[in-house]
């Protein structure tokens, strides 16, 4: 692709949030929240944290066929309120969302309320100040909040995922504002999720396009880790999820540190957890068939008799686990939009 040089510069009365917000709102830009003015100096400060030509076309985002450059990512990072050091994290998340298996054209256009979960792994978590501990999916941390927001602003502005035209989501969901969390590596009994997927870099980022998190609360009163898994399987078993009719759909299981440790103490690996959930998150084939006219299932599932208990996903490897959070007995499940696969990439500038 040829370098992109045209970047619109607009005159605005002053540097105040009110002036910038008014201008952006009049153009139909933004996510509805106040914006930091993307002045050339602020954008340059962001770009100083990456290598390479700021105007080099990197990837195309669908459906708008928007050209991603470091500069346009930097502009949106400024708008979102990012600190410059997280710029490569956002850039890498956007590269991941452009991977073909993510199916961003469908992710953005669907009536489903799919949001793009970003998980940050490795040394960038502490270096950039991400929260991987208590309340990590929630408010109160600049890196988590603004990286997720910057990704959404890029999906709006560059990918064209404007509600009602490029994003047909019937209801939307809060996670579409911002959906970024960091892996709690120090609390993970199984090491880094990214390394487990073959991405052995100092830092990495995973994107998964799905629903908001579904909480799973097991008090461990009976000291039986099977009960944690039983509740996780229960949360995964729902006819309302797109995982039900689409067998390639993944689940991300975000284990709280205490649940993770209990499962590890019972001798379970990531693969064991996935296999257990695959075996226990099931419904009779006839129930699936009663509810769906078309089932995007693996071939072996289609030929099963009605009485067979079929899994909510076509393969144990579609169930991915990582550790996040602080003290307490909560974990969560993030189901998939369905016709999408997660992607994990090294963080690069």
């Amino acid at each position, binding site marked *: 692709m040829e370098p992109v040089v045209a970047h619109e510069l607009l005159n605005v009365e002053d540097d105040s949030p009110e002036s910038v917000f008014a201008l952006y709102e009049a153009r139909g830009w933004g996510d509805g929240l106040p914006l930091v003015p993307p002045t050339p100096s602020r954008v340059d400060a962001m770009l100083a944290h990456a290598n390479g030509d700021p105007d080099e076309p990197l990837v195309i985002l669908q459906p708008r066929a928007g050209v991603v450059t470091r500069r346009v990512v930097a502009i949106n990072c400024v708008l979102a309120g990012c600190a410059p050091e997280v710029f490569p994290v956002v850039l890498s998340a956007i590269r991941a969302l452009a991977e073909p298996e993510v199916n961003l054209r469908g992710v953005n256009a669907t009536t489903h309320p799919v949001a793009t979960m970003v998980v940050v792994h490795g040394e960038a978590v502490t270096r950039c100040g991400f929260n991987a501990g208590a309340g990590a999916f929630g408010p109160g941390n600049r890196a988590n909040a603004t990286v997720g927001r910057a990704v959404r602003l890029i999906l709006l502005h560059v990918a064209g995922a404007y509600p009602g035209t*490029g994003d*047909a989501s019937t209801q939307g969901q809060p996670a579409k504002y911002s959906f970024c969390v960091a892996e709690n590596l120090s609390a993970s009994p199984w090491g880094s999720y990214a390394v487990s997927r073959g991405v052995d870099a100092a830092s990495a980022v995973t994107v998964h396009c799905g629903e908001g998190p579904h909480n799973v609360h097991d008090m461990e009163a009976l000291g039986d880790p099977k009960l944690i898994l039983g509740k996780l399987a229960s949360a995964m078993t729902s006819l309302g999820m797109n995982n039900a009719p689409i067998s390639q759909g993944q689940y991300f299981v975000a284990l709280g540190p205490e649940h993770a440790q209990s499962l590890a103490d019972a001798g379970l690996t990531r693969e064991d957890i996935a296999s257990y959930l695959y075996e226990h998150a099931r419904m009779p084939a006839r129930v699936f068939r009663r509810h769906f006219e078309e089932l995007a299932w693996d071939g072996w599932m289609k030929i099963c008799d009605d009485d067979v208990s079929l899994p909510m996903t076509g393969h144990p490897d579609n169930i991915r686990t990582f550790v996040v959070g602080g003290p307490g007995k909560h974990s969560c499940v993030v189901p998939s939009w369905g016709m999408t696969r997660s992607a994990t990439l090294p963080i690069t500038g």
Partner: protein
Amino acid sequence: MTIQIYGPEGAIAPDSAELAATPMELSGLRLVVLDNGKPNAALVMERLATYLGHRAGTELAFVAKKGPGSRSANAAIPCAPDVFDRVVAAADLVLTGTADCGSCTAYSVYDAVQLERTGLPCVVVTTTMFEAVARTMARDFGMPNLRILVLPHPLGGTAPDRLDAWAQAALDDLEALFSPVEGPRSIEDRAADGLR
């Protein structure tokens, strides 16, 4: 003091292409229905194809689900390559859809653009509630004047006799979309619908 700030959208790189040539005469042309499996999609498109045949002399060659081997259909991904090739080999005209949700609209429009690129006139069947999405996608995919037929909404859950009436009522529009005289309206003509 006036300052300068960047706009946030950056450049676009649509893979632009022209519509296929529209036939001068419809009589005797083979029409294929490419079904994405949405509820009532095959029903309403088959009715449209049948009524167009009665009026203009087109022939409904077959109805094909868009999944591999036409054994299934998945509306949220492109048409399977083997089905695409089969349609291109057999059709003079294509009716596809239905574009009555988000991802199914994106991929109905995507499939139609790819078919038009091979020289096949292709009408996408959408509904009033998803027309804006369909026209946005057509513009984004480089073919803003794509042939789009708009039916009432919703198709899923609507009784067959009502769908039949909708198909009959849409026949003038369908014939016009395949006609060199009327043709589809441009995106500019539809600017009042609030498109970005």
